[in-house]
């Protein structure tokens, strides 16, 4: 919509807005995958808008992940300030996991079910035009299983550097089909993928609650002006913290852009 308006005429400028400061909230970013070495929990607090973007980390918390199917509890250790992990823990598809975080007298919990793994068939690059601009875009190909309710996320890296774009999709409209998801992005000239760059994609099968989290984050919390009602993403964390706990499968492929 704004793009269409921009075709007419527009001008943008950075402005100064005084924003009121709010009470700080705990932020939990917790990940468990089906491969060992990916079990990370980042704890931080929200900051004022006028502050810098560094993470306001929360140290000395007690963090555990429980496999609800087996009852096994794994305690995570703080490897760096605000970063808690377990180097060997890997999840199993079909199992549900519960995260428990103790910060002082506050307890936060969240559950996530690790979905069945869907094979990441192919990764390839195409050149696409968007509003007169040519971009090299990654294409992710997979076959969605016949049953409904599969949700996917793609995380993209260029030459090992992770991109900030969020790509989530589900099988609501494409159940049981061969899917080719084009990872659309609007990049500045400097950020565009160039010939010879290595593009890597993590293909994740995520819990539907996480699809909702990422979808609502993208719609309402990225600061863009399209949303009529900006709001915090729909979290699966209980106890008043924001963020998420995801138990997902992971499959990674790389390709060199031609």
């Amino acid at each position: 919509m704004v793009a269409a308006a921009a075709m007419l005429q527009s001008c943008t400028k950075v402005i100064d807005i005084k924003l009121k400061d709010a009470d700080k909230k705990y932020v939990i970013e917790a990940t468990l995958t089906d491969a060992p070495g990916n079990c990370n929990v980042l704890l931080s607090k929200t900051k004022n808008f006028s502050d810098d973007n560094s993470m306001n980390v929360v140290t000395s918390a007690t963090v555990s992940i429980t496999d609800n199917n087996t009852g096994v509890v794994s305690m995570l250790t703080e490897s760096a300030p605000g970063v808690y992990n377990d180097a060997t823990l890997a999840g199993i598809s079909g199992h549900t996991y519960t995260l428990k975080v103790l910060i002082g007298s506050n307890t936060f919990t969240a559950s996530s079910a690790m979905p069945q793994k869907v094979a990441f068939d192919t990764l390839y690059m195409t050149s696409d035009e968007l509003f007169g601009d040519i971009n090299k875009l990654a294409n992710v190909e997979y076959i969605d299983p016949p049953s409904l309710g599969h949700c996917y996320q793609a995380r993209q890296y260029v030459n090992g550097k992770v991109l900030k774009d969020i790509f989530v999709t589900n099988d609501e409209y494409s159940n049981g089909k061969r899917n080719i998801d084009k990872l659309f992005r609007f990049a500045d000239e400097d950020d565009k993928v160039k010939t010879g760059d290595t593009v890597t994609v993590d293909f994740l099968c995520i819990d539907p609650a996480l699809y909702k989290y990422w979808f609502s984050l993208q719609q309402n919390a990225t600061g863009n002006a399209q949303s009529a009602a900006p709001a915090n993403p729909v979290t699966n964390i209980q106890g008043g913290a924001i963020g998420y706990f995801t138990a997902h499968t992971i499959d990674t492929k790389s390709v060199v852009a031609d």
Partner: protein
Amino acid sequence: MRFILFLVTILFCIPAIAQENFTMSGVVKSKAKGETIIGATIRVGTTGTVSNEYGFYSITLPRGKHTLEVSSLGMQSKKVEVTLEKNTVLNIIVEDESQNLSEVTIKSTASGRSISGTQMGVEKLSTAEIKNIPVLMGERDLLKTVQLLPGIKSAGEGNSGFYVRGGASDQNLILLDEAPVYNASHLLGFFSTFNSDAIKDMTVYKGGMPAQYGGRLSSVLDIKMNDGNNQEYDVSGGIGLISAKLNIEGPIVKDKSSFLITGRRTYADVFLKLSPDSTINQNRLYFYDLNAKLNYTLSDKDRLYLSGYFGQDQLGVGRLFGLSWGNGTGTARWNHIFSSKLFSNTSLIFSNYNYKINIRSGANDFEIFSQIRDWNLKQEFQWYLNSRNSIRFGVNGIFHTLTPGEIKSSATSSVNSSSLQQRYSLENAVYATNTWKASERVSLTYGLRLTAFSILGKGDFFNINTNGDVTDTLSYNSGQIVKTYVNPEPRLAASYEFSEAASVKAAYVRNVQNMHLISNSTSSNPTDKWLASTNIIKPEISDQFSLGYYKNLAENRYELTVETYYKDMQNQIDYRNGANIFINNDAIETQLLFGKGRAYGLEVLMKKKVGKWTGWVSYTLSKTERKIEGISNNNWYNARQDRTHDIAIVSSYQLSKKWVISGNWIYYTGNAITFPAGKYTVNNQVVYYYTERNSYRMPNYHRLDLGATWTLKQTKKRTSELSFSLYNAYGRENAYTIEFRESKTDPNRTEAVQTALFKFIPSISYNFKF
């Protein structure tokens, strides 16, 4: 039918009249074109009447000699001497003021607002009145001009969407020759669907809606198309920077029948095509629309009108994405005069809105189609009972068919073909209202509209818990009634005249709305979703109380209006946090939240309609809030369209016979908006943290527009003129959006970025008639 008779009976407190009276009736028409005149005032001494929407009038007077004074805006006043010995039919022909070439200035003696009537909260605009008002891209537009009146707020820069007295933009009933128009905007809101060349007149009701209107909470915009010249052929048109239009009208049989065809098309895309760059010349962005009308006088007592509208927008980005949308309406009406006191109109109305999205991106190759379609039958009687009572009663039935979404895909597409359930409903209403002139000074209008909205099968309906999860599915067969909502809507209004030049009025009105628009975007989108009430989505209800003071000053050269209102709204709809309204699921209710609203305000309008200098100053002070379970901790919060102050100054000055200059200045408080209360990092990117809904404001908005019209040639047969306009003449950068992002220069910081749209937009257009 028995119910209507009952209603009609209880509405009368008919005083027996001993004196011998006769009724005079007929049609008021313009001499030049034979167009019927809506709202012409016919005064006889201290009593009087007003011609109805078909130009028909009826007045009951004692036997003897009378002088009728007929006046109407833009028309020369006329005195008619009559001697009444029996019931008489007299058609009154009035002449256009502009036909009188020695006097170019508007010199109407008609006070535009009737001090004496009970109707309040109403504004009228004719195409002639908006002619000189400068507008964006020089495209004259009733919907944008109406936003310069108090209580009617623009939905955004250059937008034809609007909010009336705190209501949402879907709470306006927009009628074109009685047919509801579901999406009144072109080109994403920058133009309205109403081509001013085809429009005769527009009336906006902000409060005190008469009982014949219903179905929306906030306002009624009743737009009437021209009937077409039944005297001679006319060709007129205009060429502007982005659009061209042509209007052809004329008699089929002189004095009896006429036709009118008006077309308009924008050609911004023609310039895109000139681009050698294949990525630009494949983009599409245009709209066109077509108005047509045919009317035929069958006999002295019968007249038939057929009118239609069709418009379409096309937007496309290369071959990747395409969006087209449009409205189509059709109205067939039959006027029958049963007697000099009883006027009848029967209407059959069709209304359609649809959009289509095409996506072709690799394996994602599909088309989405959505539609809303109405069939509408109306029967209305206007009974000019006696000099004190005039009664209107009627019935109305609308059959709605909604196709929320159909997906068609090719065999190789990664998307499945699917379709959401069609929804059927029947909206019935009966109404009756009487306007009773109780005394010289006191008038009263009292009426009732009774609506019954029936949701029909076939389809699945749902029960939902507080978390928005479906707990139960209820299946209904074709034709089975799922639920009927019956709502009485009282309509009351009273006026007291202090003198011929001053009055006070009060009104109470209840409105009910069963068709709801769901949108989760800041601007109006063609793909916003219309929903009918369901077992869960209850009819929206509003109760409005208003009070007004009206005064004509300086021998009727100025008119002052002060109105105040309080409006209470029930069953307002919002969406849940993270809602997806494009959900491929029939239970759209899972994405919604419900609550209430309230709005109150004060509106002041000072208008000058006669003389070389004309114009108005309008001021609105208002507050609009919502309270919805699950939003802002269930507290009252500002609705997005809440603005404290709204000012518009509109004026034009006749410099000479050839030149008219004009200017508008607009100022308003910024809309309520949600800004972040903080930030945090997730997925390696900065995400914003929000606490309260709409607790901030956009920067205040102001703008000056200038215009000039140069009449190149004006004879009785031919006119041509050049219009110049400059939108946003002092180049104020008004915030259209404010976004938050990681700073481009210092990635460790965040910044707020304002986008402004239109700065110094000049335009020129050439209009002609021959």
